């Protein structure tokens, strides 16, 4: 029968057969198909195949192959559920760790920074160093803050509404914030000078900020604003009513500066008068006998000499330090050795931490006896119990940090863990990011223009560094407990991995190398995941129809082009 039909070339279209199977044909058309398939074996076979295909599709679709994810199962009543005790413990330890970190390090430093003139009333102010580096931008700060927060809030709401879990939303938020800050234009007028040698004459008055780049700079006149200098040698003999910001080999202040000094140089010598505070990173710092600093001094140097007058506190890190002048407030110093001379006068208490006890001359006038804390160079075998307690607290803090990150960005977390399992690429990229990005960011920070970019990059670098524990922890957990992509099992694996890493880093001699490997591996994995995210998605290129089996001729009238 079928041979007869084939010879006539009257096979039915596939679409007609499909519509028949799907019961979508009109009664007359359906009857025609029914009659035809009673006599045509080929069409009958195709009809049956299509019907079986329909049933296969339905069966495949309705099969319950995976349970409802935990996130969905808890969706409607998760807020009512109490936190499990283990997370309560972890949370408690983490809070303790954060508080200890704040009270031990951040708060004292914040106080010192405030004293040194870096005081900021809020986070954005701190970010842009309000009142210190960007004093000339003062009038813009309020607007920048407002716009930045408005943008952050708008993007935040947008992200939370639908895409809270996506890293891209966070990136947009940070990018917009950065853009808003970066696009702000300075409100004050500024003058720029660039030459082999720049000399501001004594009778010259410059209104507004002055930016100078030169081989040597001699400022004898008056700058009614801030003075920015990048040079080999800088001497300020004149009068600066604002701040001095300087990156040079040698800086000498013999004139008067009403504001602050921020300095990065080999040598800094002050013989003149500074109205406010000095922050300095130098090899040699010297406050001459005639020199005077109205507020505080924060110094990081090889050698420190304070023979002049300091109105408030001294915060210093050095190898060799000497105080023979007057300090109105406290002295907090850390270093190799400290000498307090006969003519020294210190109003507040003096605390010195170092290798050698300070030498204090009998004639020195001190507000209270010097408190000396000798540095203890403990061997690994002499670690106290507190060390291990801190290890536990920090491990809990990492786990909490990981929990937050994974909850916020579950898909990205999985992608990152997957990238970490690409060992060669992760380590390779990790070496590049760990060393290269850090060096590049530091270099960017040196230049005034690149400061914001440098700080932002360093911030991201730090976040990636901290995240590396979580990524590597999750991979180790998956090695031990098996692969699992659900959020909570993955968090559990991460927690186990982090604990093991913490144990690994506590091993004497080996610990440092374990930590370094974790940093490099984890940073590489995060970078690789970000890189992959940024690649364009390519849709599978599926042809519209199947390839005919080799050597099998197909009937010419089985197309759907005419429908």
């Amino acid at each position, binding site marked *: 029968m079928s041979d007869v039909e084939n010879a006539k070339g009257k096979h039915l279209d596939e679409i007609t057969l499909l519509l028949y199977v799907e019961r979508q044909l009109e009664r007359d058309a359906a009857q025609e198909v029914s009659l035809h398939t009673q006599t045509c074996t080929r069409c009958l*076979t*195709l009809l049956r195949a299509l019907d079986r295909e329909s049933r296969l*599709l339905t069966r495949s679709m309705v099969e319950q*192959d*995976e349970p409802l994810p935990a996130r969905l199962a808890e969706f409607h009543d998760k807020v009512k559920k109490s936190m499990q005790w283990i997370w309560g413990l972890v949370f408690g330890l983490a809070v303790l760790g954060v508080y200890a970190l704040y009270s031990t390090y951040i708060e004292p430093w914040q106080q010192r920074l405030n004293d040194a003139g870096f005081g900021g009333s809020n986070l954005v102010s701190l970010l842009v160093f309000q009142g210190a580096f960007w004093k000339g931008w003062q009038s813009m700060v309020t607007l920048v803050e407002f716009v930045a927060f408005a943008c952050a809030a708008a993007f935040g709401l947008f992200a939370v509404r639908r895409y809270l879990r996506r890293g891209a939303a966070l990136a947009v938020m940070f990018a917009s914030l950065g853009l808003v800050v970066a696009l702000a234009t300075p409100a004050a007028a500024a003058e720029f000078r660039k030459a082999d040698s720049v000399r501001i004459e004594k009778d010259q008055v410059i209104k507004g900020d002055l930016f100078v780049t030169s081989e040597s700079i001699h400022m004898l006149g008056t700058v009614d604003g801030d003075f920015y200098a990048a040079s080999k040698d800088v001497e300020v003999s004149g009068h600066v009513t604002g701040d001095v910001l300087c990156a040079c080999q040698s800086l000498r202040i013999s004139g008067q500066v009403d504001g602050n000094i921020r300095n990065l140089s080999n040598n800094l010598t002050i013989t003149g008068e500074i109205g406010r505070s000095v922050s300095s990173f130098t090899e040699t710092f010297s406050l001459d006998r005639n020199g005077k600093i109205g507020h505080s001094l924060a110094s990081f140097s090889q050698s420190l000499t304070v023979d002049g007058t300091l109105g408030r506190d001294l915060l210093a890190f050095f190898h060799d330090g000497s105080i023979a002048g007057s300090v109105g407030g406290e002295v907090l110093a850390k270093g190799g050795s400290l000498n307090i001379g006969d003519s020294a006068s210190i109003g507040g208490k003096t605390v010195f931490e170092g290798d050698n006890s300070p030498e204090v001359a009998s004639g020195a006038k001190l507000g209270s006896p010097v408190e000396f804390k000798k540095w203890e160079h403990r061997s690994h075998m002499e670690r106290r119990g507190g060390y291990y307690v801190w290890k536990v607290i920090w491990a809990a803090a990492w786990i909490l940090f990981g929990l937050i990150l994974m909850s916020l960005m579950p898909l990205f977390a999985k992608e990152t863990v997957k990238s970490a399992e690409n060992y060669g690429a992760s380590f390779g990229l990790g070496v590049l990011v760990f060393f290269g990005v850090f060096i590049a960011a530091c270099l960017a920070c040196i230049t005034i223009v690149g400061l914001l970019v440098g700080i932002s990059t360093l911030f991201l670098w730090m976040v990636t560094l901290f995240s590396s524990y979580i990524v590597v922890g999750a991979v180790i957990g998956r090695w031990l407990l098996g692969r699992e992509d659900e959020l909570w099992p993955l968090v559990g694996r991460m927690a186990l991995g982090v604990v093991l890493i913490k144990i690994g880093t506590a091993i004497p001699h080996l610990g440092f190398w374990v930590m370094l490997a974790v940093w490099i591996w984890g940073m590489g994995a995060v970078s690789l995941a970000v890189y992959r995210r940024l690649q364009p998605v390519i849709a599978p290129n599926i042809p519209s129809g199947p390839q005919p089996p080799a050597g*099998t001729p197909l009937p010419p009238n089985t197309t759907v*082009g005419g429908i």
Partner: protein
Amino acid sequence: MPGITEPKDLIVRARAGDTQAWGDLYRDYAPAMFRFCRRALPSKEDAEDATMEIFMKLREKLAQFDTSRSFTAWLYKVAANHCWDMLRRRKARHEKDAEDVDELPLEAPEPNQLEKLIEERTGEEVRKALDRLGARARMALVMRYYSDMSYDEIADALGVRRPFVGVVLLRARHELRQALTENSALAVGGAR
């Protein structure tokens, strides 16, 4: 939805703001909705997001639901529209979909070979092959063979004319067969 009778009482209570009724509705329908989204969307995370968003949307739209009609069918319609919107937005960003070639004729399969292809495939293989399909093809198959939506409903959701639905489904089947064949070839190649 097999095994679930129309929850008229729950709907009335949920409309009145009864949170317990909402919880019950969610508990009864979330697994099926998640499975629908899982079949229709490319990743599990997308499906989780979509399921939650559908139920949030449901909360807003429940007042519009006509209780004389099937709640399940209505729910699937909401889900289908939501998933298709998601896919279309994504397609606009990333994809050059294979739908450009809609006008090309399809060559009919050799019946015996099609029989053999179907006979040898498991549900898991079909689900894996679904991942390789274009958005519209995938969506059409899920609407038809998972939620048993009518041709009119599919036409409405996909924004195509009703007579075109059969062609869309046929093209989707062709894409699926191609994906099944390629996956099978890959598996054989990988095993060597």
